[in-house]
């Protein structure tokens, strides 16, 4: 059974006070890396095949990057246009500055409409604001209808991947969860499990008074909400109940339909290795006066929750270009070995490592910018070219030395170690003296030609693998050789 570590366990449901990446990384349940790698490797393969089919892939990425860059730099303009268009299409627009504001707005709408049950389409924004808990606390039953989200809702955890929230679970674990939760004997066959979920959820679709969704894009040109899904549940949630509430981050706005063509080409290919997701929905306002289908009321909750603060940082704000495809996580060797819970928040992987510290602050999430080897695989696949390693370094600077957005949060012993290192490396006589005496310690730790069991801080290296013996002899060799050469030429 999955058990996120103590620190991160709390985080998955509330606003965390501290995210312990290291603590979690030392207690990763053994089943997680293999489950995660199995799924992400499949996505990586699928993505590579789709990319290979498109000779203009790099131009598409560049176009995607340029449009997102332009949009975040002119977000006020596009959000204003979007609001006007949604209103003129008969929808309602709500501005939520904080997560608490967004929860309050959704609860208010639910109360006004006497909602007892809400069906939810998969949404990172509602994970971000912890909406399910707020609805439950207010006595409203909220049911996740995306299979992965349904599974983690039963499991009582947050998502461990942007697009496959239950990626950390094996089918046997899902079967056990279904059996326990539904009081049946569920087999560990994915098709059978999907059938069980489908039957259970069908009932909810028919009775729910409110449908809640997120959104993949918001088209400012016409005030259109775009949702892509693979299971069709998104369409059920947004058409069957009479009331539809969409909670969407302000960063999801794009200028126009022409831009959308670029992102639809990029998104599914990057995410799941599909050319297009199975369902692509365009929602412009509620049911028309003469319309037959669709909800009678449409509410768009535009979520800021720190985004406009991030926009003020010319380096960090590139994180808002993200279209939530998860490709960065799929290729990240760190993510693949620790899983999503290590990142302690609704969003994980490399994008989580650069978003969470900006949303929650580097005091809370100071470990996350360091949760990367800066290998750069993420930036290579990002469909909108977010320079993830650059932002990781930028946030590390915020942690280590502070900047205009935050005080430093690096523990004193590490700052002191860095001071010593800087001293030794900048004053080359200290370095050279050190290099000459270091080999003296070799005999104390040498075994089979390697150094093992060394004291702190080298113990952090030798606990994993031995260290080669110190052997700084090049400088001496060079000197002897140069002296000899001078001798022979003279």
């Amino acid at each position, binding site marked *: 059974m999955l058990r996120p570590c103590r620190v991160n366990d709390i985080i998955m449901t509330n606003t965390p006070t501290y995210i312990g990446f290291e603590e979690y990384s030392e207690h990763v349940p053994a089943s997680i890396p293999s489950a995660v790698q199995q799924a992400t490797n499949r996505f990586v393969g699928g993505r590579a095949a789709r990319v290979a089919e498109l000779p203009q892939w790099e131009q598409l990425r560049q176009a995607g990057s340029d449009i997102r860059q332009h949009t975040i730099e002119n977000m006020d303009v596009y959000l204003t246009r979007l609001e006007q268009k949604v209103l003129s299409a008969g929808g309602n627009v709500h501005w939520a500055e904080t997560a608490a504001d967004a929860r309050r707005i959704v609860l208010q709408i639910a109360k006004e409409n006497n909602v007892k049950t809400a069906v939810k389409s998969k949404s990172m924004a509602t994970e971000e604001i912890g909406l399910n808990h707020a609805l439950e606390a207010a006595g409203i039953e909220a049911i996740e209808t995306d299979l992965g989200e349904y599974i983690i809702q039963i499991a009582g955890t947050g998502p461990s991947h942007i697009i496959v929230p239950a990626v950390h679970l094996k089918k046997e674990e899902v079967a056990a969860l279904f059996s326990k939760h539904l009081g049946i004997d569920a087999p560990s066959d994915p098709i059978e499990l999907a059938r069980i979920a489908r039957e259970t959820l069908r009932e909810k679709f028919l009775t729910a008074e409110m449908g809640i969704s997120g959104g993949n894009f918001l088209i400012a040109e016409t005030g259109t909400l775009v949702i892509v899904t693979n299971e069709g549940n998104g369409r059920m949630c947004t058409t069957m109940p009479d009331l539809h509430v969409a909670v969407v981050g302000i960063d999801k706005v794009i200028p126009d339909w022409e831009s959308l063509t670029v992102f639809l080409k990029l998104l599914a290919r990057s995410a799941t290795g599909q050319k297009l997701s199975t369902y692509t929905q365009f929602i412009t306002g509620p049911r028309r006066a003469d319309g037959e289908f669709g909800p009678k009321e449409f509410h768009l909750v535009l979520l800021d929750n720190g985004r406009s603060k991030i926009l003020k940082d010319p380096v960090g704000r590139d994180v808002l270009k993200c279209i939530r495809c998860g490709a960065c996580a799929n290729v990240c060797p760190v993510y693949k070995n620790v899983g999503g819970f290590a990142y302690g928040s609704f969003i994980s992987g490399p994008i989580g490592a650069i978003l969470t510290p900006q949303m929650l602050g580097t005091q809370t999430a100071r470990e996350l910018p360091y949760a990367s*080897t800066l290998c750069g*695989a993420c930036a*290579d696949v990002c469909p909108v070219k977010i320079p993830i390693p650059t932002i990781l370094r930028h946030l*590390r600077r915020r942690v280590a030395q502070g900047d205009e957005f935050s005080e430093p949060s690096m523990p004193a012993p590490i700052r002191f170690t860095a001071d010593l290192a*800087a001293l030794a490396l900048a004053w*080359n006589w200290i370095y050279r003296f050190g290099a000459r005496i270091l080999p003296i310690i070799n005999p104390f730790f040498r075994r089979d030609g390697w150094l093992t069991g060394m004291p702190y801080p080298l113990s952090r290296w030798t606990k*994993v693998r031995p*260290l080669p013996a*110190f052997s700084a002899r090049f400088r001496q060799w060079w000197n002897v050789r140069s002296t000899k050469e001078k001798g022979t030429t003279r």
Partner: protein
Amino acid sequence: MPKAQLFITCLGDQFYTSTLQNMTHILERLGVELTFLPEQTCCGQPLFNNGFEDKTRAVALNFMRAFAKSDAPIIGPSGSCVGMVKHHYPSLFKEGTSEHALAVDIASRIFEFTEYLVSVLKVTDVGAVYPHKVTYHASCHYLREMGLKTEAKSLINAVKGLEFVPLNEEETCCGFGGAFTVTYPEVSRSMMENKVKNIIASGADTVITCEPGCLMNMAGGLHNAGSNIRAMHIIDLLASK
């Protein structure tokens, strides 16, 4: 006769004396006149990558002052360290200052070892003989930051008697990542063990890399796994007779 300065890197300096000697021999055999400036220490990447940009400046200044003594190209046995100087030094100093001008100058004339051989000297066959089954790990900064995708392989393929076998997940990080390895040792372990598993599965008896850091990590990991597979810097392969 081309002139060049040796940048030995701090890891090379501490742990890989014979690799540095081999680097000297190969370059001299190819007709390069070398100098070595003893004031060099480290490029400062460990500080820079961990957020201590202010502290990095003093280290970079030491490096730049040392190598400013000559205007010859600078050659280092690490894509990561060379990448630090080439791609990040100019960003450390304010534009318009003499330090910035020097950083730009140094960045423009620093080369990773295989890059220098293949792109500057236009050499791929250095006359090495190594009758073994060999695989290759593409180091992250060498591959992605320096953009060196073909250099190492063209040098490896020119070695006589060598049989090349592919490595599954060749371009996946080995888990070194500089200070990452001591910041999150358990994650580094998982990544290293995955790399070692792939190396063993390749059937090679030697794994080649162009980075001292990856080399230390993979060699130690192979030793832990009780494997006889040799992890070797490409320089040592190219010096084999």
